[in-house]
């Protein structure tokens, strides 16, 4: 089983952001402080908006954007 998934598909836990697919979304997410390479914690998983903790902030992300965030499970 591959460890690389879309953020919209994963369960609660710690993940590393590997890629953000659409340039527009990359810009939007970087403005709010989510960058490729960041370690994030999923607090609430999909379906519906996903809630993650990144650095000191908690951020809700709509399902449509979560689909374009590629993450890898941290051990």
């Amino acid at each position: 089983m591959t460890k690389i998934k879309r953020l919209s598909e994963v369960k609660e836990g710690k993940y590393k952001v590997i890629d953000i697919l659409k340039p527009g979304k990359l810009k939007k997410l970087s403005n709010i402080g989510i960058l490729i390479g960041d370690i994030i914690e999923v607090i609430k998983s999909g379906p519906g908006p996903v809630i993650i903790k990144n650095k000191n902030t908690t951020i809700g992300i709509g399902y449509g954007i979560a689909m374009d965030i590629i993450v890898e499970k941290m051990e």
Partner: protein
Amino acid sequence: MEEKIVAIVGNPNTGKTTIFNALTGSRQKIGNWPGVTVEKKEGYYIYKNIKFNVIDLPGTYTLTGESEDQKIAIDFLIQNKSDILIVVANGLNLERSLYFLILLRELHKNIIVDLNMVDLAEKEGINYDLLHLEKLLKVKFVKTVGNKNIGIENLKEEIYKRCKEPTSEFFIFNYGEEIEKSISEIIDIIKEFNLSYPKRFLALKILEKDEYFINLINFENYKKINDLIVKLEKFFNKPIERVLIEKRYGIIHGIVKETLIGRKKELKIEITEKVDKILTNNFSGPLIFFLIMFLIFDLIFVFGGPLENFLELILEKLKNFFVKSDLSVWIISLINDGIISGVGSVILFLPKIFLFFFLFSILEDTGYIARAAIVADRLMHKIGLHGKSAIPSILGFGCNVPAIMGTRILEGKKDKILTSISIPFMSCSARLPVYLLFTSIFFKENQGIIIFSLYLFGIIVGILSIKIFGSVFLKEESLPLIIELPPFRIPYWKNILIETWTRTKYFLKKAGTIIFVGALVLWLLSYFPDPNNYGGESNFIGRLGSFISPIFKFSGFGFWQAGVALIFGIYAKELVVGTFGTLFGFENLSNTLSIYFSPISAYAFMIMSLLYMPCLATFLVLKREIGIKWTLISLFWSLFIGWLFSVIFYQTFTFLTGG
């Protein structure tokens, strides 16, 4: 007196509003930016004999051309309308605020960074060496705790000093040799365009592929720039926007690391996390959401109702006072039937509006609204709206007026217009007397179900309107949801009271002036030419009623009294009941109505009362919030759809029952 303009910007959740309130107190007013539906907040304070006009720019994370509020911020900044710019930053998340600062530095020369909420940051062991920060970023830093009024005097002093001796240099953030070379080449290409933006800012925006700015230059030139971009992307082996982001954050990480004093602890927000899990869970989330909405709804009525009755009593007393006075009959009628009834119908909204904004500000300040948006997003997404739209929509069942004013919490233009258009179809409390009157006469057996069906019908028409207008007129995408969930906190009362007061005052001022004219017109129509028969058939309003009544023949209520009742219902929907009372006499109202109406036409009339044009107060706030064009569209749409559905209902059921 000398005047200076101070603009405030900042990310959401940095306490920007608190700083604005701390500077200006209650000397503020709200309005809209010209031509758009984004809220504009202004205030002033006087310091050392200079009047500082403070402008609160929309809270945003960045400056792109893609959203309306950001465009406002950019335009405001480049036209250099402000003498000084205050960037409010949050000590808990300095990286993000600095990222925004770097973008702002390309636009404005005279900047002060206000590091706010330093008490919270210090509690977490986070502290910054301000002098070092100032040296690295070449900008003044000030520490404040807005909600405790700490550092505000110092901030005022710094603003004063910087206004007296402004710096004249743009700060140049160095992106490295390769990119800097391209930036100069782009500047060379675009220099022939006489655009008001600083050249370097514009070059960066185009390099970032910001469509709004790309569209400002012609295609030929963009092709040249695009070649540059392709070359750069080949060099870095990454999309260029990603390179720029990483460069900026790279430097920022370095700066933050270098200036951080003390050890940064892992933040303890486990409790918040646990609460968040419950509040946003797919099962308990919606339950809590509806419970809270119900509670707001209930509180507005429990406290608003008696206050409203009290105001009504005062108006009654006032009317009595005039009846007993020696003034001539027509003046008494003008004052009582015209002005007091008309203006009163708006003033009676005040308690509910005040309570709504009060309760809403509390929810906002505690941080719940962000969670509510998450919960509602799944459902609202299906009808094409942003999660936050659910909040004003639900409150529309209480009263449409504060609900439409509540659409101010929505950032996207599309969400705002569509939500505002659908709200008038939510059965507000003023429709209830109409439903109660007719169901008590015609549907005694199943009053509850009939009333419920009308509520449901309104929701369906609301969704239908969103679908139609959303797909036909507003092609732009609804904003995707990315929302920060701030840590829960105890509401700050000063903020809540200022917010509530400013908004209520705004409603009163707007509504008060226009309704006065409207009330006069309606009175004239009802009083003349036959003063002894107020609102009767022999007066203009009766004639108007007779004139429009044939339209309603197909709906089963084509008589002039129904027309007059609907015209008066424009004031406030509950006046439909009162008008029937005046015209038919209150004693035999049920008997008379059952002569004029059948159960089918009564239901058709209720559909019409529910859907046809918003009441005067709703109309006024609609105009204010979404502009006259959309208000007129909403007006004609609701008239049309109300008429159409009442006809369809009447004809179908008459046919089915063999009538």
